[in-house]
């Protein structure tokens, strides 16, 4: 009897390990319904809580002021958190066109210095 109970316990534990995310009973939210109709099922297997922790850590590492981190994490949907998690160093970060212009200027300056071009007016 005792061993049977232990087998049952182990079985339940194993089953529970296999499905770490037990869905909450209730309605399917609109965002989830739209995404279910447009995306593959695998999205649901990525744990949103893990993604949230990862994004929070990345915000801190990338210099977001500590008092702003929580508000910025809270503003993101689960799908956005999954997009950001682990990718915040690679995703395009729109920043500055001026940097590019600076590089072009630098190239021109070098070409000028080595005498390939002559477009900058010489001082008298």
């Amino acid at each position, binding site marked *: 009897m005792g061993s049977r109970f232990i087998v049952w316990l182990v079985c339940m534990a194993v089953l529970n390990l296999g499905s770490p995310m037990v869905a909450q009973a209730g*309605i399917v939210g609109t965002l989830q319904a739209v995404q279910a109709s447009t995306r593959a099922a695998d999205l649901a297997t990525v744990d949103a809580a893990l993604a949230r922790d990862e994004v929070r850590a990345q915000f801190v590492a990338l210099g977001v002021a500590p008092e702003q981190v929580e508000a910025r994490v809270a503003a993101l949907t689960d799908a956005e958190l999954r997009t950001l998690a682990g990718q*915040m160093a690679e995703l395009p970060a729109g920043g500055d066109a001026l940097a590019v212009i600076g590089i072009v200027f630098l190239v021109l300056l070098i070409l000028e210095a080595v005498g390939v071009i002559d477009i900058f007016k010489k001082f008298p």
Partner: protein
Amino acid sequence: MMVVARARAAALAVIGCALAGCAASPPVLPALVPQGLPPQVELDGTPFFAQQRYQCGPAALATVLAASGVEITADELVSEVYLPGRRGSLQPELVAATRSRGRVPYVLPPETGALLAAVAGGEPVLVLQQLGAGPWPGWHYAVLVGYDAARDRVVLRSGLEPRKETTAADFLASWDRGGRWALVALQPGTIPPQADLERYLEAAAGLEAAGRPQDAAPAYAAAARHWPDAALPRLALANLAYASGDLVTAERGYRDAIRLDPGSVAARNNRAEALNRMGCPAAARREIEAARDLAVGGPLAREVEATAREIPPAPVADRDGCPAH
């Protein structure tokens, strides 16, 4: 001497092309402007926020938000969307900040026609451009405010330039390299021209998920009017009713959604949940069985099973006034 001169000419040609775009290429815009749109549009009234160093994200976002009637400056957005470690802003955060200001962050389909149609419809468009290459990608946000098919040019609010004109070919190439990403900030209730139902509802549902159901509601209602045969807007409105505790309205909305799309697992699951809470377990069981058959192997299978577990088993009967099917 000849070699140096030739090298000089070649270098000048390359630099000239890179800086100005090759002017000799044929016009691209006339063929790209969709039927029925005016050949020339410029949204003169769009405000301009000059960007601080690396902060084109806050500046461009402030531009589209202010154009949609939000009182805002670029500085206010820095703490919400600027990422110091990347010297820039990431797209999901621009979307999130748009929601935080009560606007629907609609990401356009990645087509030139959609871009031009939005501008012609009066919405300035926030775009991601890639202006550099290789180790200097030069990611940049700007706002498209106009186009002129005859002159083959577009007009942007960009960086420090309140009115930057560039050739359509150059702009479209930089937008293409940037992944064809474009965002408009819509007042809830405005449906953009040529809107895509799923894209629009996903943007609106983000407002609800971010705790702004009062902003999501007019967007859902507008979607239900714009796409009267679509089930998703009905489901969305019913979900709002459910969340506010109005089970009768919710159940009716789910029934509408199921009538429009009998294959909607979400609508059937949610109707079963509403029926169960209304004291109609038998009707709920019938609905959840239908949902179960449709959900097998799909993304909502787990949710359906969770709902099914909540419904009392067969001997428990419906109270009076429950729907017969």
